[in-house]
């Protein structure tokens, strides 16, 4: 359990360093949330104060007022004048830039935090050195010197180094931001494995919907230094009132599903969720495994009659639940899935269509529609295992 209630004002002279230059500098951060999730993601635009919050949890930045409690142990409390020093907080940190020690070898970097003594509070039992090394695939790098590594390799070592210091909480501040696309998905997969195999809680800072939908159990939504909402990932990303913060331009819905059968001949897998079934490439997904699938609004087509003779594999019935028209060429339709269409708990999907299509089809709330989604609209990047 992690409980955070912090506020910090920035004087005009030194505002938050990572804020984007075109935005007005942040005047302060005021964050209150608590979560027992395995992976908690702080999500928001750059400059919304996410990094400041994790820095305050780690003790690298000093809040003016507030409390930080992890598993019942108070790390910071302004009223009771508690401020545990950074090195005794038992909090690991993976920075954006890796920040390996350039004068040390990879092995020495990995072992730097291993000497950490279990001072106050329980440290994590820890993962053995060899297991961390093989999990991260860095066996061949051990004797190299840190500056000779590539960006992706550096980040692997940085994750290993943090893990081997046996933290009870692992903070990750946009660990993929400095990497190219190929390396990103590679490191993201590793982070998923760390989450599943290393029994360490993670607080992850991100402004990428892809990362959030793959990793997050809980989400803290931040904007301009304030917490807009905190809760389960599906709940947050499917709440329409939060759409301005969860990404108007990458609109979509998150669906939790599990693999029910494979079609080995076509390399397709059927996923079931409350509201229907989806066919998508996912042959490597074990049967029964739970996945979170992100369906982008622009990949969803609507029809008023059941179409035939077409390439689209997924046709799901639903009813129009709402039409969001902000003017312009594009409108967004919320569709509640389910055969009866009136189930109150039914899943909602978003579809982005042209206003012309809306007028021609004469869509209105409550109307029966067929939702069409190409099987190949999802790839590995939009699916995350949640076990």
């Amino acid at each position, binding site marked *: 359990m992690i409980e955070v209630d912090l506020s910090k004002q920035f004087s005009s002279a030194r505002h938050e360093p990572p804020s984007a230059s075109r935005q007005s500098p942040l005047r302060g951060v005021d964050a209150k949330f608590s979560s027992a999730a395995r992976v908690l993601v702080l999500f928001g635009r750059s400059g919304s104060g996410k990094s400041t919050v994790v820095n305050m949890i780690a003790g690298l930045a000093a809040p003016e007022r507030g409390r930080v409690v992890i598993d019942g142990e108070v790390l910071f409390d302004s009223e009771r004048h508690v401020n545990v020093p*950074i*090195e005794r907080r038992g909090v690991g940190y993976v920075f954006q830039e*890796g920040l390996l020690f350039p004068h040390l070898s990879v092995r020495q970097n990995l072992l*730097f935090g291993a000497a950490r003594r279990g001072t106050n509070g329980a440290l994590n039992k820890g993962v053995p050195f060899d297991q961390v090394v093989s999990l991260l695939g860095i066996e061949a790098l051990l004797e190299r010197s840190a500056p000779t590594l590539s960006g992706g390799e*550096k980040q692997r070592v940085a994750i290993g180094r943090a893990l081997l210091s046996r933290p009870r909480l692992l903070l990750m501040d946009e660990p993929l931001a400095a990497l190219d696309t190929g390396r990103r998905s590679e490191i993201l997969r590793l982070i998923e494995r760390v989450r599943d195999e290393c029994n360490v809680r993670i607080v992850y800072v991100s402004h990428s919907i892809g990362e959030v939908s793959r990793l997050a159990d809980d989400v803290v939504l931040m904007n301009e230094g304030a917490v807009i909402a905190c809760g389960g990932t599906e709940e947050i990303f499917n709440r329409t009132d939060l759409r301005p913060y969860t990404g108007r331009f990458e609109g979509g819905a998150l669906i939790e599903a599990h693999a029910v059968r494979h079609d080995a001949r076509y390399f397709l897998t059927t996923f079931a969720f409350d509201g229907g079934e989806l066919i998508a490439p996912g042959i490597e997904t074990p049967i029964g495994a739970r996945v979170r699938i992100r369906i982008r609004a622009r990949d969803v087509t609507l029809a008023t009659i059941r179409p035939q003779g077409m390439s689209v594999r997924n046709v799901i019935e639903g009813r129009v639940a709402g039409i969001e028209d902000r003017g312009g060429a594009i409108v967004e339709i919320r569709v509640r899935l389910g055969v009866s269409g009136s189930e109150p708990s039914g899943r909602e999907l978003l579809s982005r269509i042209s206003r012309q299509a809306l007028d021609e089809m004469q869509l209105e709330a409550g109307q029966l529609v067929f939702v069409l989604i190409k099987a190949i609209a999802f790839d590995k990047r939009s699916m995350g295992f949640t076990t």
Partner: protein
Amino acid sequence: MLSNEEIEIIALSLKVALASVVLSAPIALACALVLARTSFPGKTLFDAVVHLPLVLPPVVIGYFLLVVFGKQGAVGAWLHDWFGVSFAFRWTGAALAAAVMGFPLMVRAMRLSLEAVPPKLEWAARTLGASRMRTFFAVTLPLALPGVAVGVLLAFARSLGEFGATITFVSNIPGETQTLPLAIYSLTQSPSGDAAILRLCAVSVVLSLAALAGSEWINRRARRSALGADEGTR
């Protein structure tokens, strides 16, 4: 080639210079750390005081030392009574004078190299469980080491050439406080010293060049490894 007397002078100069940097290096490192990593009211004044020996006439420094560290001086008398340490007209005084005069050079080089160590690397060390002390000795100091070494070397070279403060503070006593520059000065006062002057001048040039070459070598090596390290520490 060199007379015994001249060899003694050179040995004394090296001893004084070595003692001066050994004495001042830890203090200079502490001052450099304070200047590089902290901010407090009065920091500008502190900075100015540290740099004072660079701009004051050396004779003035020598006189201050005489007043403070001489036999009757406040600190000098106390040191003599309690520890039996005496600076007045002794080679230790020459070392003290050289240390004070070389101090700003040393602090400057150390400060620059400490400032070049990214504070975020120190953060990383702290989050890995390292105390401030361990962070300094395991991360900051090794990364700043080339600059620290250059600072020590520069101050060493400066000590070999120290004249004004030394002669004012501890006078010019052959075998005790007469270092290379003082010996050369004495020789210029005598009519038959030309050959000896030339020899001692040559030794001065060689020693100074060696110190400069050493610091340049350290700098180059550091730059070469910094090129590789650049990406990771940005």
